[in-house]
């Protein structure tokens, strides 16, 4: 579904160039749940931004369903984002003047969906994510976990094929994090959502089926969960992180 081929990303001026991404390549098949891990500054958010077309790459190519997104024009990119991609951010990024229902419905409005069908579609998706009872509330009236579930609903309500999550549990307590990760797993298993999640939390990463480790802009390692249970996978992730080095408090 997604092919990342030798992408590079440089920042800075002529005299001082920082290489944020260094020849990264990987594939994501439909229905996969991939976690990208790494310490602060390893390039994981840059990678996610490049895939989400918010940022541009310096070299290489990114293909989604065979389309090279680095060759799309501005208007096509906007269309690509609203039709194919769903976003979940660390700080929820819900509009505080809109109710939860409207925040979810916004994705459909942007897609110029039939305005008569919006409410039913929102009801349907929020039913699956267990947030029907808070639809009439404003973001400041609900908990962080509920906000994040609303963001998940927005990320899939318009039938987007790839869900990009940037530290989705970063602002949540442990119970809410666990709830959210279970919901994301359900979205992955039951609704067939393909998920690409950036995290520096090993516990969150252990919910994925595959983990890519980034260090200094390069893929350092890759772990596949296979048939192992989550706690075994979690320990393996910790082992790789130990090899990666860096501040341990940064990764647990």
């Amino acid at each position, binding site marked *: 579904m997604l092919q990342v081929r030798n992408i590079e990303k440089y920042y800075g001026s002529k005299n001082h160039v920082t290489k944020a991404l260094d020849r990264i390549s990987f594939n994501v098949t439909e229905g996969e749940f991939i976690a990208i891990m790494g310490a602060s500054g390893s390039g994981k958010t840059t990678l996610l931004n490049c895939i989400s077309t918010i940022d541009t790459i310096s070299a290489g190519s990114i293909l989604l369903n065979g389309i090279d997104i680095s060759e799309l024009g501005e208007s096509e990119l906007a269309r690509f984002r*609203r039709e194919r991609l769903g976003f979940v951010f660390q700080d929820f990024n819900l*509009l505080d003047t809109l109710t939860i229902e409207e925040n979810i419905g916004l994705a459909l409005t942007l897609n110029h969906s039939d305005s*008569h069908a919006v*409410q039913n579609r929102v009801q349907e998706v929020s039913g699956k994510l267990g947030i029907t009872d808070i639809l009439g509330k404003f973001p400041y009236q609900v908990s962080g976990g509920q906000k994040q579930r609303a963001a998940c609903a927005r990320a899939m309500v318009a039938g987007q094929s790839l869900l990009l999550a940037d530290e989705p549990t970063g602002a949540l307590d442990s119970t809410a994090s666990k709830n959210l990760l279970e919901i994301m797993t359900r979205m992955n298993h039951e609704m067939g959502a393909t998920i690409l999640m950036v995290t520096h939390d090993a516990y969150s990463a252990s919910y994925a089926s595959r983990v890519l480790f980034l260090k200094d802009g390069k893929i350092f390692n890759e772990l596949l969960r296979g048939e192992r249970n989550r706690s075994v996978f979690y320990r393996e992730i910790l082992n790789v992180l130990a090899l990666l080095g860096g501040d341990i408090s940064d990764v647990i």
Partner: protein
Amino acid sequence: MTLSKLSLRNAKRQAKDYLVYFVTVVMAAALIYAFNGLVFSKEVLELSAHLSSLPAAIVFASIVVVCIIGWLVHYTTGFMLTKRSRELGTYILIGLESKQVTRLFLMENLTIGGVALVLGTLLGNLLYQVLRAIVLALFGMPYHFGFSFSLRALGLTLLYFALIYLFAQIKSRMRIRSMKIYDLIYYEKINEEEIIQKSSRRRRTFVISIVFGIIGTLLIMIGQAPPSFIGAACIIVFLYGFFISFSSGVPAYFESRPAKKYSRQTLLVFRTLSAKLATMGVVMATISLLFTAVLISQGMGLVFSSIFHNREAQSCSFDLYIASYDTNVNLSKCLDFVHTNIPVTCELQYPVYLTEDSPITDYLESTARYYRYYPKDTMMKYSDYAALRAMLGYPEASLEPGKYLIHCAPYIKGLLEDYDRNVMLNGEDLAQGNIYTENFNQRLYLSGNGFEFLLVVPDELLEKCTVGSINYAAMTTVPVRETQLISLSNQLSRSTEPLSEDFIGIYSKAQAEADAAFGITIFVLPLYYLALILTMTTVTILTIHQLSEINRYRQQFDLLRKLGMEKREMVGTLRTQFAIYYAMPAIPPLLITIPFILHMGKEVDPGILIGASHPVVILGITLGLFFLIYAIYILLAYTGLKRNVLPYA
């Protein structure tokens, strides 16, 4: 870093963030200084004896201006305090005493005010020259640019500014002192509640407020004191009720119509606006109220200036004019005085005659809003008429045998053409001839060339007719000014019986012009001064509210971009939000002002508000002026917002 350095740096930042506010305070200082310049200008005050009351009128207007600008400074300071409460709380948190923080905040505001005052005074000097030029032009005096700096005007401006800032500072000091660190740090998080929650009450308030609005506008249109006051009160109730209930009513409307809500950009536009209206319904209503006051005072100003101007033009066309309806009056001594003291180029003493009955006056009374000033219709000899026309430089008017001419005010020309009846005079039947409408001293009470109309007939037919008034018209080489008219009047009172003085009027074109200029200077200029200050103040408050939410807007559009909204749509959404935000407080004043001004036009004597002074033209100019200033601020705010919110668009 010392406190003063910190406050200076903060003041700079504040001036940049609140540029619109800063510009308005500078403009206010400039206007206050310029008008104070008029108060202390000997040159202006000596233009007319009546102008001795000008300082009082301007000081009165300035007191109102001080209150308005005081409100702006107080409001904006309070607003900045809210937006910066976390920063001020942090100062206290790191160990500054609350007294020091208060001083820091007040010093910043004083610095902004001080700089605005200096810039405003400099600009005010130029503005004063503009005002001086206007007043001199009104009085027909030549204008020469002369840079003058009035220390007394500066002193008065300083006093006004001291009052403005003293008021704002006391209020802010009280506010900061009474706040705890927690309040300061979490002040922004206080959510304002909707004032009216229940939808049934909301709808009722909405309907009742509309009813009040209609009643208020109708009462104001009556134009008399008690109904107007009640009308104004009704309009205040309407505006507050309307904005408070409207901000709550919009979400209710869309909640029951989800398809409408989710179509195109409606969702984003209505939610942003209703969020704003829910927190600033009262402010919006106040702004709307002030807009109404601005439009009404601007409209009234134009109506007044048209009245002054047109009355002047219609009342006295001759350089000197003496008229008496005491037909036994002896003007010889008075005219001797004229001949010795005033350089006359041509003159004519002539009678105005009365008909035996008043068919034309009756006709006009029944068909137009015409007031009967003369008991009968008025007539003039053709030879006198021709001489008077020649004196005024009007083209010759020929009188064909068997006909009579009419000279009338333009607005009744059509009616008299329709009248078209013969006049029987001394047994001779005269048919209607040409009708002329130039200015011809036809608005003087009982002593002009008829009131708004006059028949011109062959000389011989008037021999046996009753004389209505004895008139004297003269053209001079220099304008006949107020002082000469007073001497002339004294001369007359010495030469005639005391009773006769009441029957005699002395007029001059220069005096009529001076009277109009006086009226405009004393009423219209202060009215415009107030209107200008009010417009700038209210638009500034609207704009500050809009610009203070730049961060929120930026976050919103950043997210929308990530979610795939196209640039075109983003610009469209921003524009629509912007347009509705600025249109909201302007619509109710328009609905009140348009019928008010149009109705005002009907209340004025007929024949005054015509041509370029037609009520529709006045309305157009009033709205044009107001929306010009409004548009400048909107454009400033929009470019600032777009640059910050949609830098990539």
